[in-house]
């Protein structure tokens, strides 16, 4: 092979092959392969060997025991339900707070807008763990926040209902509250992006044709921001459903969420196939929302 043909090969095939091949190979080895291992693991049998599983030998090659347990054991079904309900409620409240904030961001002056946007993004850059931790401080029985809420409660209700403190920690309430707190930026940013792109003259046109501001919002702004609502909603819902840190720190150990269950099955029960099966089941549940998300994200980013 002459130098020239080698050079041509490099330009035509070699360079793209390198650009595509290196990241491709990396992701196949460190993402796809481990994931396939998990899928295979989910149909293996638990043993007391190290590693604690077996495929073949005296055990069946494919055992669907794990999946059968997920569908029949109330513990797993409850965990799935708890996760989905908690994630849905958190998504709803993120939307409830996030929408007006995002809309407000598009209405303030430009200099204010940059400052406020930075304030929205800032917590996102600070440690996730510490944001959860900050609420642990507030929700504790002796914290100023709990004391303040307790006093307010005792002031408002009949004396028989008075409490010494409000039991916030280790409950689904705490999980949802902290999820709303940590995921709110994920709701605000896509919403802001889709609202900011709306043409303000459309609002004026609706007003000009006789709509009051509230009506303008319902007829013009809201319908056009649906892609943003769905993108933001999925961006909160998907990670919230698989959340591990928040339920571990502030959740109720009696009604665990899926993420915590996977981790417990794996590390404490040493039941790798079971952990793998729950993981696969969670992913299957997430396929729908993910597809909705990618469709609407493309819509929210593209033109109309």
């Amino acid at each position, binding site marked *: 092979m002459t130098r020239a043909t080698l050079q041509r090969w490099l*330009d035509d095939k070699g*360079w*793209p092959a390198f*650009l595509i091949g*290196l*990241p*491709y190979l*990396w*992701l*196949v080895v460190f*993402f*796809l*392969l*481990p*994931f396939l*291992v*998990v899928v295979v*693991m989910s149909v293996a049998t638990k043993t007391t060997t190290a*590693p604690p599983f077996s495929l073949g030998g005296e055990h069946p090659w494919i055992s669907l025991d794990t999946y059968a347990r997920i569908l029949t054991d109330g513990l797993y079904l409850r965990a799935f339900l708890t996760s989905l309900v908690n994630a849905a409620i958190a998504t709803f409240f993120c939307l409830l*707070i996030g929408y*007006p*904030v995002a809309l*407000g961001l598009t*209405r303030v002056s430009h200099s204010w807008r940059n400052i406020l946007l*930075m*304030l929205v993004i*800032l*917590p996102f*850059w*600070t*440690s996730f*763990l*510490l*944001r959860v*931790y*900050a*609420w642990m*401080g*507030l929700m504790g029985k*002796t*914290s*100023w*926040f709990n004391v303040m809420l307790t006093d307010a409660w005792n002031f408002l209700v009949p004396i028989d209902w008075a409490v010494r403190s409000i039991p916030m920690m280790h409950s689904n309430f705490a999980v949802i509250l902290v999820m709303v*707190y940590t995921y*709110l930026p994920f709701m605000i940013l896509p919403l802001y992006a889709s609202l900011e792109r709306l043409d303000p003259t459309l609002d004026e046109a609706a007003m000009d044709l006789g709509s009051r*501001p509230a009506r303008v919002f319902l007829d013009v702004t809201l319908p056009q921001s649906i892609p943003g609502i769905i993108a933001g909603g999925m961006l909160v819902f*998907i*990670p919230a459903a*698989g*959340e*591990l*840190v928040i339920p571990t720190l502030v959740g109720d150990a009696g009604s665990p969420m899926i*993420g915590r269950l*996977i981790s417990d099955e*794996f590390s404490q029960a040493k039941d*790798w196939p079971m952990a793998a099966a729950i*993981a696969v089941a*969670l*992913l299957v549940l*997430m396929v729908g929302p993910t597809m909705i998300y990618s469709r609407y994200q493309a819509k929210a980013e593209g033109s109309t």
Partner: protein
Amino acid sequence: MKRRPTFLISVMIFGFAFFYIPILSMIVYSFNASRLATVWGGFSTKWYVALFTNDKVIDALILSLKIALVSATISTILGTMSGIVLARYTKFRGRTLFSGLVTAPLIMPEVITGISLLIFFILLGNWIGWPASRGFTTITLAHITFSAVFVTTIVHARMLQADRAIEEAAMDLGSRPWQVMFDITLPVISPAILSGWLLAFTISLDDVVITAFTTGPGSTTLPLLIWSKVKLGVTPDINALATLMVVTVGLGVVAAGIIMNRAEKRRQAEERLAFQRND
């Protein structure tokens, strides 16, 4: 017809209070003299002193920074490559799988990524003897994998905005594909690459779940150290550590914001000036 949107403003005030009251409360209580983390016992900086004299914390911080530095750099290279591939090579065999692979880690719950990597590393260790033990290397490999896809997203978005014609102009003027990339593409998208690196660095520095699964004995990163302490409850020294981290990151982000804002303003002013000269 400019009316004050009172409702929006009140929700915004509530929203920002919701964002910042927990953080501010944490900062205030980091100066609490009391050992009981949530009961005020006077002003003190002793927890900061304790922090700086705690070797465990210092070691964990150094390990975290090392991992973040290495993984951010490698993941930026990989992520930039795949971002360019996604934007420029629209037809090659396996592209559908490729684009699936660069988005899946974004939405994969961290527990699952963590467990799959752990099982993978254990089995690999059993079969081929590598990795013999888990620690710096396995954590870094895991971090590279999931931060690379964030870099990919940023670079891809920037590439879609970039003008294809300038690359074609360079080719037309005799540059080979790899020269075009180094002479034209990379300089044009360099701000995106930089923000990709910063994001990868922060993600790595912040990660707890995947790190918890891929770490081994003796390799405790700062988030893991915090995680193990926080699981036991609220302690004043974590308040102090949290305050330092929040303030550092906050100052960094604000400084970056101001610098970028200035650069943008200068660019606009220059454009205006050039425009006026043309008139």
